Structure formats: C-alpha cells, structure tokens
C-alpha cells in the first residue's frame, strides 16, 4: 500500500473511532435514564392503584429528557448510517420503550402506538436516516411490557387489587393475537414471542384463582372462557 492509501484508510478508521466514542457518551446517558425509569416503574408492583398517578408522573420528566439524548445522537450519526450504529443503543432504547408502554398502559389501559413512542422519545422525521425507531425495537419493548404485566397480575392480587389480573388478561391476549400475525424469522424476537405463552399462562392462573374464589367478578366472561 502506498502512503497515500495508508493515510486515507487511517483517516477513515480514526473518524469511525471518534464517532463511536461520541455515541458511547450519549448511550451512557440514555442507559442511565432508561435504568432510572425501570427503577421507578418497578415500584408499581408494590403501589396501590390510588398511589399510581404520582408514581407515573415522576417517570414523565425522565422520559422527556430522553428527547435531548436522542437529538444528540442524531447530531453525531452521519447521514444514512443509522443501521450501522444503532446496535450501540438498542438495549437502552428497548428499556425506554417498555417504560413508555407501561406508563401508557397504566394510565390509558391501552397499547402505546409506535408513533406515540416515537413522539414521546422525541424522534424526528428529519433525521430518520440517522436515528429512528425500528418496529423491531418497539416490539421488543412491548414484549418486555407483557413480561412485566404478568408479574403485576400476581403482585396486584397480593396488594388486594383483584380486578387488575382480569384487565391484564384481556389486554395481553389481544397483544398475543397481534404478535401471532407476524411472520417472524428465527431470531431473538421470535424466541421472546415464544416465551409469551408462559406469561399468559401465569396470568391465566391468577385469573383462575381470583375468579374461582369470587374475589373478582369477570365481566367480560367470553374473553376468558376461551382458554
């Protein structure tokens, strides 16, 4: 290799190293925020329904602050290179997505849409080829939500909230129907989807326990009879 070429290659590699380091900094930030939210939301398992709103309110400022991190990331990633770097923040992002989904579920009893997550975390269409929210990550976040809801079904009964498992059951079953529509290839998402049945089973057992003991009345009976 002549010197010119050596230098060019070195240049290119140095630039990559620089970008990687800058991204790393932001990912550390995002990771901290994601962990903070996960920590706060872990308390839903020990919080009675009445005390939930303030708990969820305390997550919102952290969610809001993720917007800065995302736009910082977008300013670092070069044009069209989103998929090159995204693995660096995928894990933290998925944790953040599941936090958004949990807050939405507990406030609206609804599945947060991809667009809503995107807006909440501050993704902008203008930098879609630098930083974007892929469907795959959203779906991972939703599966994490289900994993957490199966725990919540158990723990809410412990706290004396017997209605909760039934609501969760209806919600999760529809989610499962949604996931069943997807043609997943053999990857992590597929394995996690396969794992959903255990969450559903766990929730069903809780529903069975509370309804058999007449602790809660199952209003939408038809939805539960099926399984």
């Amino acid at each position: 290799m002549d010197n010119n070429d050596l230098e060019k290659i070195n240049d290119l590699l140095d630039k990559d190293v620089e970008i990687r380091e800058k991204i790393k900094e932001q990912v550390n930030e995002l990771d901290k925020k994601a962990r903070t939210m996960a920590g706060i939301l872990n308390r839903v398992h020990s919080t009675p329904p009445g005390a939930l709103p303030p708990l969820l309110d305390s997550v919102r400022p952290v969610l809001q602050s993720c917007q800065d991190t995302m736009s910082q990331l977008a300013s670092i990633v070069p044009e069209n290179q989103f998929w090159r770097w995204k693995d660096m923040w995928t894990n933290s992002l998925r944790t953040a997505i599941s936090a958004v989904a949990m807050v939405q579920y507990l406030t609206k009893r609804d599945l947060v849409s991809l667009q809503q997550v995107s807006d909440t975390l501050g993704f902008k269409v203008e930098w879609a080829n630098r930083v974007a929210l892929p469907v795959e990550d959203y779906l991972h976040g939703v599966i994490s939500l289900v994993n957490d809801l199966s725990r919540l079904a158990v723990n809410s009964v412990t706290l004396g909230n017997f209605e909760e498992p039934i609501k969760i059951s209806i919600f999760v079953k529809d989610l499962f129907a949604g996931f069943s529509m997807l043609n997943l290839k053999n990857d992590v998402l597929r394995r996690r989807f396969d794992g959903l049945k255990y969450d559903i089973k766990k929730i069903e057992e809780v529903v069975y326990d509370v309804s058999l003991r007449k602790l809660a009345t199952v209003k939408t009976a038809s939805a539960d009879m099926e399984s």
Partner: protein
Amino acid sequence: MPTSLLQHDRSVLLANFESFRADIDDYNDRRERLIKASRDITNLSKKIIFLLHRIALEDDEASNARAAKRGISKLREVQDIYAGLAPELIGDHFWRYQRQVSPGLQEYIEALSFAHYLQHGTLIPFETVQRSLSSPEGVPFFPLTVSDYLLGLSDLTGELMRFAISGLSSHKGGRAKATQVCAFVRACKADFEQYSAFVPDLRKKQAVTAQSLEKIEDAAYTIAVRSSEYDLPPEILDDIVAQSISHFSDRSHKRTRGHDLEDDPDNDGS
C-alpha cells in the same frame, strides 16, 4: 373506579400489527434477495479467481497480463449484479443489510485485487475498488467500507501463496515470481497489522496470512539454498529444470503427482 372504563381497542391494535407484519415481511424478503445475490457473487468471484490462476500459470511472459485482462472483463458480470442491487441498498438500506452483502463483496474484492496484482504488481487502492462499484457517471452503488476492503485484501494473500507455489513447478520464471510475491505478502501483512485493532475479523485473517507467508518463505528459502549450490545465473537454472521436466513430460502422471505434492492439503480453501 374510573380507570375500569378505559380499555384498548382490539381492532386498532390488530390493524397496527398488520402494518408491522408488512414491514417485517418486506425486510425479510429483501434480506433473502440480498443473501441470494451475495451467494451468486461469491460463486462468480471464486470462478474468476480460478480463471486467474489458470491463465497466469501458462508458461509465457504475458500470462499475467492476459489473466488480468480476462479476469477484469469477467468481473464486469459481478459489477452488473451490483448495479442491479443498487436500488435495494439505497440510503440507509446499505447499512441495514451490510451483513448480507459483505461476504460476496469480500470475495469480489479478493478476485478484483488478484487481477489488479497480476496486472500492476501492486495492492489495489481503496478508491479503485469503490470506482469499480460505481455507475459510469461515478455514482457509487453503495459506500465501500474499510472493513470489507481490508478483509477482501486479506484473502488475497492466500491466493498469492497458491499462485507463488504452483508457479514454482510450472513456470520458467516461477522462482523469480515467488520471490516477488513473498516480499509483497510480507508488506501486506505489515500494513494490515495496524488495522487489526479496528477491524475485529481482520485479526483472525492475519493469522491465516501469517501461515501463507510462512509457506512462501519456506519456498523462497529452498530456492535460495538450492541455487547457491550452483554458481549459475537463474535463467540457466530455469533451463536445466525445464529440460528435465520436458524429459519426463510423456510420463505425465509422474509430473501430475509432483504437482499435487506442492499443493499443501491444509490450505484453507476460503
């Protein structure tokens, strides 16, 4: 309790998942197409590498140049496949599917750099590879990555080892060529060393390059030792060897066997 009135809308939820399905299917289909194309490119490139070996080993002065010329014109078939793939790899798609594109691309670079070496005796520059993967107007089909470039070149050293060692037995100037290749591969290995910290797969390939280099060095050593025993210029030594080969040439099986022995069975075929 007011919250109990809230509930999700099942049909909205399912409609959303339907759009995810379209998205995921689109991704998987494109991925499959690129894997297939990459496999075609790998096959074609491997054939070109064989072609280069075959012609370059022909026993005359111009064999290298002739091999390069044929190889480069065959490589156009690969370039045409890449031209056809360009729309699939547009914008941020390239990086999304980089892992599917990479194997074929490295094989292509290996073939291209081999042809380039036969023609110029040098390492093909990064720019030249990128230009070969661009439209006639100079618009790249996709951005060439340093990692694919270096990994493709790293495979070249294995081909050069084969080229040098089989050249020894079938070529008049084979020994001079082997010495050149030896120096060239040694320089490559030294150049690549500094990059192996940046390109993870390169480190593994450097080990293979080291093995190839050692094989060529051993061959060069044999040449040096044997020719030192006779105080004759190399051309005359070549003639003596050529004469004894032609003496046996009607008993071709013997020569074939000798040739096979040169071909080290533990070469990896990558």
